[in-house]
């Protein structure tokens, strides 16, 4: 057990790159189920999925950075007011995000997303990420971390949305591909739940396999490094066996 732990943190690469964990290893939708409601119900089509991803990025990233900056300067705020501040900031950031979506897609996208647009102001990503980085006091790290989580959310939403649209309606981004074979169950909430569940199992198995490969790569690297060091030492000491 101890040997394995030493090998994994030997390079320190994992710790430095832990900021980018949110994209794949700790995906908010698929691996750690932080935000499931929009993905399982509202991501009927690729357009709606992209719109929700854009709203999530615009709402989450500034909120978490402002939260980590505020915790450095205002230490007198009682702790029960923290969620209130986060939620109010993210509510005000909903307005520019809605104007942006209306400009990129057509104005009827607001009716397509329905209530799941404003519901992204109550993200679980905000509450769980805002607690972590104020302890270390790095606003830039907090911004990168929340950006990676939001990008992971967007990526998984696009995958789920495209699968549901291709299998459910036979179109993708409105362009008809396959009008004969359609299962309308994928467009309903229950189809979305089951799709997300199977993709989550797929992602979890991928994480297990990648961890195994990384562990073996690190063992090889450390063995080769030791061998090279021993060779160097032997030559320097004058042990002319080579």
């Amino acid at each position, binding site marked *: 057990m101890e040997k394995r732990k030493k090998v994994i943190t030997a390079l320190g690469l994992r710790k430095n790159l832990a900021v980018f964990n949110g994209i794949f290893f700790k995906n908010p939708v698929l691996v750690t*189920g932080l935000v499931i409601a929009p993905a*399982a119900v509202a991501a009927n089509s690729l357009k709606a999925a992209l719109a929700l991803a854009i709203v999530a990025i615009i709402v989450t990233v500034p909120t978490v950075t402002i939260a980590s900056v505020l915790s450095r300067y205002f230490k007198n705020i009682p702790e*029960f007011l923290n969620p209130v501040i986060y939620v109010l900031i993210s509510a005000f950031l909903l307005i520019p995000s809605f104007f942006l979506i209306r400009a990129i897609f057509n104005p009827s996208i607001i009716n397509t997303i329905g209530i799941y647009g404003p519901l992204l102001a109550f993200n679980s990503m905000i509450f769980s990420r805002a607690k972590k980085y104020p302890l270390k006091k790095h606003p830039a790290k907090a911004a990168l971390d929340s950006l990676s989580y939001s990008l992971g959310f967007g990526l998984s939403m696009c995958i789920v949305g495209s699968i549901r649209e291709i299998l459910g309606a036979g179109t993708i981004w409105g362009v008809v591909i396959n009008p004969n074979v359609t299962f309308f169950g994928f467009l309903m909430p229950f189809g979305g739940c089951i799709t997300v569940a199977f993709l989550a199992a797929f992602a979890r198995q991928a994480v*297990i396999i990648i961890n195994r490969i990384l562990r073996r790569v690190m063992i090889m690297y450390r063995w080769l490094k030791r061998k090279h060091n021993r060779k160097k030492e032997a030559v320097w000491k004058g042990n002319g066996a080579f």
Partner: protein
Amino acid sequence: MVKMLADFFTLMVTAIFVENAVLSRGLGMSRMIRLPLNSKDRTRFSVLVLIITTISSVLCWWIHHFIRESEYIYLIRPILFIVCISVIYISIWIICKKYIPKIFEVIKKDLAVATFNCAVFGTVLIGAQTGISFWGMLGFGIGSGIGYLLAVLLVCQVRRRLQLCDVPKAFDGFPITLVYIGLLSLALYGLIGHQLPM
């Protein structure tokens, strides 16, 4: 008088069974996967959600009544409702801390998670979108809370039983619970027959 009672009970039964907040609309699923499994904690959490849903539905109906006719309502509406919910949270915290310290010790940990929840905010938004009367909104709020309680009971019971089964490693924990929630919502879909308005 008859219309009042009719609205109240119709919308309450609709919110419990047909338009369940968790099983038909998928709100609040991310909390349910993480809830503790013993019965004291989960009933405490879901009763808190029920209380907050009723209070917030009443208050938000009053606020929505005055700003119903305005152009950019879909932008102003979320902000006002969020302000309303935060006011409820702060007032419950302060009142319980000062006057009822026994209850405060019990609900201290769960209050933040129970208030800022997709289920609470979702019921308020849905009730405001479809313009319903005051008694209907009250019934919808109570019914939504009761529906959440029923869904929490079902899912926690299933999580306990799944811990005893031989689940493959990739499906262990979160994915298999989501498959179960999908099957439950498939069963409820049989009652409705069509996609609910979002």
